[in-house]
């Protein structure tokens, strides 16, 4: 709570300063500044996006992009404190803090009084078992954490921001606006003189002369800013001989913050040229990875790829409706989508210096790519139009889901120690996730077979599709089988046992057993054609449970993959799929009976 109070003080200090002119500034250089965050040096643009998403769940506030928002937070904390940035969707939490119930986005200033009032009782929640906390309590704790980080960000550059206090002439710096750094050399003298003044005249400022009042105010402000700043290490933006430190840490190590002060002055005065020059001076030579990540952020390749896949489906449907054979535009859309998808994944490989799949989010990106790429391959090889629909549809759906799997806004996480192995990430993980993709495609083909049969599709088309389904399930068995065994060998290498019946391992085995079962059922003629197809279609449910469901259990050695909050959605998906498959099967069986009758 001290942090919040310190920020409130900073805001009070700065209230005399005229609000900054609305700057027409270019944030390109600012966004390219490197910063160390969560174990990785990344562009400030990425940092801003992660923070803004964490606080607000959005990529922009009040029409300002993340970098612009962060610049305001760092260099104009008074305005930033009034910017509604904290999203509270839980009405009970809003009520708890006496906030307006109709809004969901609140500013730091709106939240601060409520948070301060409930600080003591909330502290008790930190000692409780997180599993026993209600959703409201969890949201409350997260809100406190977010506000603590925000308050640190607001004070990151408090040393170079104008104090808004007139310094007595004896301590004047000759500047119209003075910052903490300007008094760094004379700070101890100011504090000593102020202490002498208190000893001589007491603490009642009514007895002070005007200059003495200014001295007391200045000494108090410097002390408060210093106390609140010295431990501020959130924004590690200064590279001192390979060690990344915050502005305050730099100041305590006698670092020079002049360029940062110039940036602050330029920002506050709306001086576009000064802002650009100061940002460039701070930035120096920018590494390629920083450029690449900024470009990745701006282009947002995966949402764009999703858009192209959807467009491809729409155009393909339109062409088929018109009974046209022109495939140029649907294929172009798929091609553009794939190009963006591959570029996005390649960028991530370069930025993170590791294979593309290490988290649940990344597995969605990769599985969707395999779906789309396989669709293109099947079309080019066998003119399989169903593959184009199924592959692009699955890819678009998975890309749509991906952002929901991000736990705290960061999409490029550093991996836990056991996952830090390019060999196993590049073999087991890619193999098993490619297996998921092929399973999904097989299931989508099976759905399509049922639908096409109900639509009286030609027998040859159905036969070819059935043949594709059979071969796809074999490929799925190959990939998931080998992927599962490779996972066992990885477990043997890292944990000392090949198989431990861990939920994640069991999930993978379930897919393999299901695929073996349906193949043997087909061979033994225990599953007729439609039962076989229904079982293939049900692969969607099996894969969903093995891919996501087991992570919800929160038990086992695969703790790095644990997730929460998707149980309901997963339940709806599984139930919906089961009902859909049962309905399609029943309708097809009725159709067969009618045909026989």
């Amino acid at each position: 709570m001290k942090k919040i109070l310190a920020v409130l003080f900073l805001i009070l200090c700065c209230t005399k300063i005229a609000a900054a002119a609305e700057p027409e500034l270019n944030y390109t250089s600012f966004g390219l500044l490197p910063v160390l965050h969560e174990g990785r040096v990344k562009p400030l643009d990425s940092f801003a996006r992660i923070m803004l998403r964490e606080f607000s769940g959005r990529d922009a506030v009040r029409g300002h992009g993340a970098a612009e928002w962060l610049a305001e937070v760092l260099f104009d904390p008074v305005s930033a404190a009034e910017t509604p940035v904290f999203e509270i969707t839980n009405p009970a939490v809003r009520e708890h803090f006496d906030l307006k119930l109709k809004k969901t986005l609140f500013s730091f200033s709106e939240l601060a009084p409520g948070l301060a009032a409930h600080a003591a009782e909330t502290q008790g929640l930190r000692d409780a078992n997180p599993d026993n906390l209600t959703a409201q309590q969890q949201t409350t704790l997260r809100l406190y954490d977010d506000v603590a980080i925000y308050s640190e960000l607001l004070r990151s550059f408090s040393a170079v921001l104008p104090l808004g206090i007139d310094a007595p002439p004896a301590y004047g710096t000759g500047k119209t606006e003075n910052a903490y750094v300007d008094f760094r050399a004379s700070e101890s003298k100011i504090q000593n003189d102020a202490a002498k003044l208190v000893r001589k005249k007491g603490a009642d400022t009514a007895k002070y002369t005007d200059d003495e009042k200014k001295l007391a105010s200045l000494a108090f402000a410097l002390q408060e800013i210093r106390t609140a700043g010295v431990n501020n290490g959130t924004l590690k933006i200064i590279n001192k001989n390979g060690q990344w430190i915050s502005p305050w840490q730099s100041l305590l190590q006698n670092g020079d913050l002049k360029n940062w002060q110039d940036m602050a002055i330029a920002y506050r005065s709306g001086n576009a040229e000064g802002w650009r020059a100061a940002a460039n001076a701070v930035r120096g030579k920018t590494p390629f990875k920083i450029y690449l990540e900024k470009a990745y952020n701006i282009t947002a390749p995966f949402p764009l790829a999703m858009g192209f896949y959807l467009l491809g489906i729409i155009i393909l449907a339109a062409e088929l409706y018109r009974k046209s054979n022109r495939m140029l535009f649907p294929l172009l859309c798929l091609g553009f989508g794939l190009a963006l998808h591959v570029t996005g994944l390649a960028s991530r490989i370069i930025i993170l210096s590791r294979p593309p799949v290490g988290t649940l989010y990344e597995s969605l990106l990769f599985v969707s790519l395999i779906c789309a790429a396989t669709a293109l391959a099947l079309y080019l090889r066998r003119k399989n139009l169903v593959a184009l629909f199924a592959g692009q549809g699955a890819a678009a759906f998975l890309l749509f889901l991906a952002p929901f799997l991000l736990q705290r806004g960061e999409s490029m996480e550093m991996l836990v120690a056991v996952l830090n192995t390019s060999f196993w990430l590049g073999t087991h993980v890619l193999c098993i996730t490619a297996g998921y993709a092929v399973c999904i495609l097989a299931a989508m083909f099976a759905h399509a077979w049922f639908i096409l049969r109900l639509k009286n599709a030609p027998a040859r088309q159905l036969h070819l599709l059935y043949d594709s389904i059979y071969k796809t399930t074999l490929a799925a068995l190959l990939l998931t089988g080998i992927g599962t065994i490779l996972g066992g060998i990885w477990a043997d290498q890292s944990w000392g046992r090949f198989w431990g019946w861990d939920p994640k391992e069991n999930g993978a085995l379930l897919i393999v057993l299901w695929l073996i079962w349906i193949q043997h059922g087909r061979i033994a003629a225990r599953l007729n054609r439609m039962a076989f197809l229904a079982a293939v279609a049900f692969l969607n449910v099996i894969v969903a449970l093995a891919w996501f469901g087991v992570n919800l259990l929160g038990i086992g050695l695969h703790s790095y993959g644990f997730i929460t909050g998707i149980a309901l959605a997963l339940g709806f998906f599984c139930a919906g799929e089961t009902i859909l498959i049962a309905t399609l099967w029943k309708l097809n069986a009725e159709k067969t009976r009618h045909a026989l009758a």
Partner: protein
Amino acid sequence: MLQKTLQNCRKLALAVARADAPFYLLPPLMLLLVAGTLAQGPMGLYAAQKKFFSSFIFWTGPVPLPGGYTLIGLIALSLLVKFLAFSEWSRRRAGINLSHFGVLILLFGGLLTATGAKESFMVIPEDTESRYLYDYHQRTLYIFENDVLKLSKPFNELKLRITGVPFDLIVQNICSNCAIVKRANEGNYHGMAKFMALESTPPSKEPEADLPGLTFSIAGLKDQDGTYIAFEGMPEPITLYANEKEYKIIFGKRQSMLPFTIRLSDFEKEIYPGTDKARGYSSDIVIVDNGLEWPARIEMNKPLRYKGYTFYQSSFEQTDKMQATILSVVENKGRLFPYIGTLIITAGLLLHLAFVMRGRTA
């Protein structure tokens, strides 16, 4: 008669080897897999695995159901009979036969692991050496005579009276998960038993969290006679004196010894800069064997293998004054089978897929 018996055997073998067998055996195995996985939440990983997977039967109320051993055993039997007696040895079936053979290799490796693998761990503080292995689950009562091991009794074999020492040790009570409570009554209690008693409580979800212990009485040592308690992790051993010899009673994890020594030169925990998230753990060790010594390194995903033992970087302990590495140690004769099985299954499935892709339709 013989011919009829042979015919019946062949019929039975044929029935076992048909594709119907996995068709009927796999659904119960999948159900077991789902049930055993879901049960891990409420029951804990170890207990659920033991009940559902490492068992021949398990009970659901009064109903016995086949456990993992039974179902996997039946599938293995079916596959073995099919592979040996009824496989169609043709180019067309080569991939399938090879895959089946790979699965058999994998299952055989699993059998060797299930019956013969030993898992333990060792704790080595920096700049010290050790050859002691501690079992993860088994506990033992040790009695040392003048610091030389006199006898050891596994926890599950602790009988009423322990002989072989010059005093009577009578086990009064054992608990696999004890609660330490303040002793309410007064009596002839010694050591920690003067102040506390052990009460049996239900086992924890994970056995590592259990506190096993026992209450016993000593007779034949006059003023040392009385009731004692011993539990895992007790700070000091129980010390008794008889016939001018010192006897120490220690209860804890079962220990065994490596045929060589490992010295820890350095343990390193590497973290991502600016975070407390571990990037990797590694132990620089020296193997000391038969007067020879040489350095080696154990890292996450890079175990050390020597003389049939495999050492894995498992965990660590850290205080202000010292760091210690914790290494998992596994002896497993079936270790290579998954590797061989994987290669064979991969080759088999690729061969079959290539055959199917070349033109055969479903």
